[in-house]
């Protein structure tokens, strides 16, 4: 192991980490918005729209991100839709994540006992109040473990960005190995940087999960 080499590579890995995080967070934000919107559509059983959302969820849950990205990045320009690599990355991640988040939110909404709605209504709340004060807070806290699992999953999936030539961690490692053949050093840095990115999220996840268990009904 050549530590001098590793030190020299550090800035490039650092830039790559920042890029990965930037695109990753854009993707996750899009995924959250899409996920909530889709879950509400499915939950409220809005006609037509519900079918479209269902098809979207099934389609994106059952295909790999790599194939989705290839389609957006290499296939869509052929029919005149041109998107930059960075936008393509966050869009792909957001579409994939949206499908997963929707499922998580939906099961969060479904898991709330009907008696909660009934009790709230008998207290004289209107539908918006029932949803805002009773259903949503419980749905959110019960879907947090799932959301965090999705978050880790999505941040892991960013490793395929290198295939559409975004200079993320994977790309940087591959590039440096190709140029200087310092395989071990690059792979070690690669692992360390993914740890830096994901270990805090994972630890935060376990902590939040413990905290939020108190918020559940009946504890």
């Amino acid at each position: 192991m050549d530590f001098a080499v590793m030190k020299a590579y550090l800035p490039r890995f650092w830039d790559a980490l920042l890029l990965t995080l930037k695109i990753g967070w854009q993707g996750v934000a899009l995924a959250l918005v899409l996920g909530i919107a889709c879950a509400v559509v499915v939950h409220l059983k809005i006609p037509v729209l519900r079918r479209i959302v269902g098809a979207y969820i099934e389609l994106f849950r059952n295909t790999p991100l790599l194939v989705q990205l290839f389609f957006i990045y290499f296939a869509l320009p052929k029919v005149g839709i041109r998107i930059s690599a960075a936008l393509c990355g966050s869009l792909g991640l957001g579409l994939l994540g949206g499908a997963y988040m929707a499922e998580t939110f939906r099961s969060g909404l479904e898991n709330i006992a009907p008696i909660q709605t009934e009790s709230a209504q008998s207290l004289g709340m209107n539908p918006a109040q029932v949803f805002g004060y009773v259903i949503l807070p419980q749905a959110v806290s019960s879907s947090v473990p799932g959301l965090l699992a999705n978050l880790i999953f999505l941040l892991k999936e960013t490793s395929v960005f290198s295939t559409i030539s975004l200079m993320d961690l994977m790309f940087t490692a591959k590039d440096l190995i190709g140029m200087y053949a310092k395989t071990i050093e690059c792979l070690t840095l690669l692992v360390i940087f993914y740890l830096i990115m994901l270990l805090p999220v994972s630890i935060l996840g376990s902590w939040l999960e413990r905290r939020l268990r108190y918020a559940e009904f009946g504890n």
Partner: protein
Amino acid sequence: MQSLGIDVLFKGTNFLRLLGGLWVAVRISLISVAISIVLGIVMGMLMTSKSKVLKVIFRIYLEIVRIMPQMVLLFVVYFGTTRVFGWNLEAETAAIIVFSFWGTAEMGDLVRGALQSIPAIQHESAQALGMNPLQVYGYVILPQTVRRLIPLSINLITRMIKTTSLVMMIGIVEILKVAQQIIEANRRTSPNAAFGIFAVVFLLYFLICWPISRLAGHLEKRWS
């Protein structure tokens, strides 16, 4: 507008080649799932033991699998271990090692959960009948967990098939690589082939994974 590549798809053996590529992906995931199920059951049984050392080891193992992207693991095994130990590893073997490493962790954790959901009285009653630990597991505990595990392992198959798309990065010629080759070979005559070919790849993945995950969901609902 020029053709969008559907004609390219049916030129020569192109479509068969794509299906062949898909089979490579499916084969790798089926082998890995089989290995994962066997090792996962063993691991799940070990995880229910009271040993502190085992607990720490499994905790670290699960955490690694949880936060390391499969692509990084593929690179570490395929490029890293070959460099360190100087052995010769086929790309497909490396892929199976990585996917089994990942699958075993997932299965192990699921098996642990399923085992722990079995009431203690089942253990005690079996022991009271004079069964040895092997018999207790073989005849009493495992059969009861199987129903819970089958939908989850079917789900794991679809996740593996989806993840196999990464193996093209370590040089395995699977469906995406074949798609790229077909597009490259027809670049001159049909420059827009990328659209049709990638759309078909997208659809093929969906057609493989969708029925399997529907089946898993169906079984989960029926048996829960």
